[in-house]
């Protein structure tokens, strides 16, 4: 080989504590090095030009740059050598700034260390070989998982961009949590009024295929070419025939079915349509409460249905869809707040969650929009709102802020005053977090215009006073006093957690999730929509707490990522993937067992089992290489011999 070495001064960043000229001189003694120089700013235009010139002049076929971290400029210099006609992988970098000049002042030691790092880079480079990316086709179709507002937005934006969308929703209707809300902050406009049209758009858009009451069963493949198996759960109603007339529900004799859509604040029928604006507006039988399905006799709905859509024998069905990208928008759930024994642990009927309160406020809710106590149906006079129930509480393992509770609590107090003008509302809060546009003004309105009493402090206990009311004991930390309020109703702003089943889906999608089940974005700041699995994007609360505007924005952002990816007809892989030497492979399958990405499969070659890497799925971690005892599978650009060359440069 003919290797050129460039030692960068980085102005005085490196040169102040490293003798760059001496290091370049030492580098000349290394094997295959035919050219070595020290340069002032290697990354600057003249520095890069010097590299290109040297490649041409000295017929270099490999380049080592000793400068800053490769995390900073490896991509830069790879482009440089590529411009000069070399393969981008015939380049190595020695980090002599972050790892040398900036962390020690001993110039002799630093110079020696620089020379050794260059020697290691040269040793590795001598074992490098050119790598080229492979191209492959893209299925220009996207799967959106979750039909809440984030998923709806992502689906609509993709569909508008001309991409066919498969939208999978676990419940029988899309709309998610937003569909359950009465009004939205900070404008106090009707949630159903702004979400409803979007839901209708989903139903009507020619590019969107909606699978409601369905779940993702299996995901295989890789960016551009995913294959997704979807389980369509048995609804016991043939949706092809169901017109959504609701006659079944009117006649259903099983009227004591818990109403999940109404957050169990009321009862419904075993066959029902969750709410009038449901999309799709189709009936579903709750199998656990249907008399026909549990006891084998009833059949009222089947008799009632004018289109004969009822099918008690229906089984789960499966469809497989081929897509190029996946957007996960699985949303959230309220955490199980009953761990708070001091708030009654779910025992006191008039201590309810904020989402239950939304249903009480909602005109389409179980009380028709009248605020009444679940225990006795009386209108409450004093309502206490407690924030951060299950948020920012390390004692129960929930250290994070749920993000939007401060705002909806303010909204709920305002709505309460509108509904019950003579009522009094108290809010126990830790801090008011209202950083959005018009948000702080909104909370101030609650305090200043609606006379809501905000008390900064926590509630230590709630207990019934024996007379039908509740004593709320708390602290007012601003006044340094204990507070006791006799309340008729208590509303808990319950913290959120990732949707039920989120980790399981993450494993199917091969994306990471945090300790609370929220999906991990690729980079907290710079890649908030991407995941570590190429082609899988995130939208909405599944990635972390966010309110409606942010969820919608992220839905659009995910769609933008999808559209950008689909703007190309072919995709390229990163060629730093594992490669199998089939002569050495004995087909023991240890690599297959370990691969975190399912990127290795068992294939038969001339009657023998051999490992085969799916290059487009391989992410280049090298776990397989460390696992294979005979070294038959080697991660390109980090092969055993390449790493051994570096070890041998240091230890012999």
């Amino acid at each position: 080989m003919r290797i050129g070495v460039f030692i960068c001064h980085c102005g005085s960043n490196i040169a102040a504590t490293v003798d760059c000229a001496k290091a370049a001189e030492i580098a000349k003694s290394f094997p295959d090095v035919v050219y070595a120089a020290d340069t002032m700013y290697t990354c600057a235009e003249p520095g890069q030009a010097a590299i290109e010139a040297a490649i041409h002049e000295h017929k270099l076929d490999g380049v080592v740059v000793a400068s800053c971290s490769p995390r900073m400029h490896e991509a830069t210099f790879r482009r440089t050598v590529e411009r000069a006609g070399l393969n981008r992988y015939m380049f190595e970098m020695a980090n002599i700034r972050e790892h040398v000049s900036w962390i020690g002042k001993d110039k002799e030691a630093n110079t020696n260390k620089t020379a050794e790092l260059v020697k290691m880079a040269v040793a590795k480079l001598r074992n490098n070989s050119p790598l080229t990316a492979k191209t492959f086709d893209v299925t220009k179709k996207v799967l959106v998982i979750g039909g809440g507002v984030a998923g709806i937005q992502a689906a609509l934006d993709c569909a508008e961009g001309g991409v066919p969308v498969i939208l999978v929703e676990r419940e029988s209707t899309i709309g998610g949590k937003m569909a359950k809300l009465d009004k939205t902050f900070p404008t106090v406009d009707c949630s159903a009024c702004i979400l409803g049209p979007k839901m209708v758009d989903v139903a009507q858009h020619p590019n969107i295929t909606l699978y409601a009451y369905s779940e993702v069963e299996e995901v295989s493949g890789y960016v551009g070419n995913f294959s997704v198996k979807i389980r369509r759960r048995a609804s016991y109603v043939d949706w092809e025939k169901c017109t959504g007339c609701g006659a079944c529900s009117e006649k259903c004799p099983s009227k004591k079915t818990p109403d999940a859509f109404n957050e169990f604040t009321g009862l419904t029928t075993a066959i029902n349509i969750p709410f009038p604006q449901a999309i799709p507006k189709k009936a579903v039988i709750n199998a656990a409460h249907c008399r026909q399905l549990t006891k084998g006799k009833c059949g009222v709905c089947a008799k009632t249905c004018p289109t004969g859509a009822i099918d008690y024998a229906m089984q789960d069905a499966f469809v497989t869809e081929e897509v190029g990208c996946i957007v996960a928008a699985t949303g959230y759930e309220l955490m199980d707040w009953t761990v708070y024994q001091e708030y009654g642990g779910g025992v006191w009927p008039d201590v309810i969650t904020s989402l239950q309160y939304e249903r009480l406020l909602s005109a389409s809710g179980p009380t028709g929009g009248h605020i009444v106590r679940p225990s006795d149906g009386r209108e409450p006079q004093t309502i206490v709102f407690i924030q951060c129930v299950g948020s920012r509480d390390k004692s129960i393992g929930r250290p994070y802020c749920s993000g939007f509770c401060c705002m909806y609590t303010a909204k709920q107090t305002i709505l309460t005053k509108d509904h019950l003008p003579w009522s009094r509302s108290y809010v126990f809060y830790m801090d008011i977090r209202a950083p959005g546009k018009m948000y702080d003004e909104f909370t101030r309105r609650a305090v200043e215009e609606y006379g809501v009493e905000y008390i900064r402090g926590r509630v230590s206990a709630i207990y019934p006073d024996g007379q039908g009311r509740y004593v709320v004991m708390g602290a007012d930390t601003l006044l340094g006093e204990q507070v006791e309020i006799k309340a008729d109703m208590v509303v808990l702003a319950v913290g959120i957690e990732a949707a039920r089943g989120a980790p399981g889906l993450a494993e199917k999608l091969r994306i990471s999730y945090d300790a609370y089940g929220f999906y991990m974005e690729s980079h907290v700041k710079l890649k908030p929509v991407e995941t570590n699995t190429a082609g899988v994007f995130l939208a909405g609360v599944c990635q972390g707490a966010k309110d409606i505007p942010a969820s919608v924005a992220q839905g659009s952002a995910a769609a933008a990522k999808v559209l950008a990816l689909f703007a190309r007809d072919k995709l390229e892989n990163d060629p730093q993937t594992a490669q199998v030497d089939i002569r050495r492979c004995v087909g023991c399958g240890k690599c297959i067992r370990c691969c975190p990405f399912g990127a290795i499969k068992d294939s038969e070659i001339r009657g023998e089992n051999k490992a085969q890497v799916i290059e487009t799925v391989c992410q280049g971690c090298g776990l397989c290489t460390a696992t294979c005892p005979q070294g038959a599978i080697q991660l390109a650009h980090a092969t055993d011999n390449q790493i051994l060359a570096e070890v041998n440069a240091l230890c012999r």
Partner: protein
Amino acid sequence: MNYAYYPGCSAKGSSADYEKSTQAVCGMLDMNLVDIRDWNCCGSTPAHAVNTELSAALCARNLDIAAQQGVQKLLTSCPSCLSNLRHAAKRMEDPAFHARVDELLDNPTALKFPAVTSVMQGMAAHCDADEIGRHVRRNLGALSLAPYYGCLMSRPAEIMDFGDPENPTLMESLLGACGAKVLEFPLKTSCCGASYGIPEREMTARLSARILQLATDMEADAIIVACPLCQMNLDLRQKQAANSADARFNMPVLYFTQIMGLAFGLSGDDLGLDKLRVGADGLLLKIEQAASAQRGSAEGGKA
């Protein structure tokens, strides 16, 4: 069956009725409580507030004596004693602390102390609900009882090992086994004011009043306690509490052993009921009335 027992100072004075009823009820349950020899005060409230090591030394001496007697499990009635003994045992697990305390005591103490637990837990471990039920001679079904543990019995949870620190339920089980109607009493672990009855009389009165008020509002016939100090604040100072809340209370405050003793058919004398400031006559009357009503209906049935 013999159990090593640490009575604590109150048992010999202000809560002699607790002691008397405890001995009586345990006796009926075949729990023979045997005092450890030459025990001393646990240090009560003041000691640990002044010096942790000196306080631990007082307890360690008791624990060491018990250990030397070969005791495996030591029972005590008073939550304050229990707390002190258990805290000391925990702190003594630290070898350095152990060494310093040994120095204070002029004697090396045992490396392993017996486990200390409350008489209430001891009782529950000794016999099950059915066994307790077998001893019931008086039907308490007419009574609504408010179980009140006080703040000390279950806290801190990691030291006291008394179940859910906010919502212990052991007393409910025992009272329930005796046939009483036990109220879900939300303030069961709230503070009564404890030893602040003297320096902060107003505050104590207010705290006790809250408990008494709730019990009254919930139409409890009595508050049942397990702590001498709670009993004193709620019973002896009931009038002070009433004054502070501008209310009137007439709430008997009995030790759980006293009400169990009543259920077991023991007499008021056996249980030291005469020591109560708010008498239990009303309770006894209600039990009796209910019993005669039942007899009446039973006889009526015969007729």
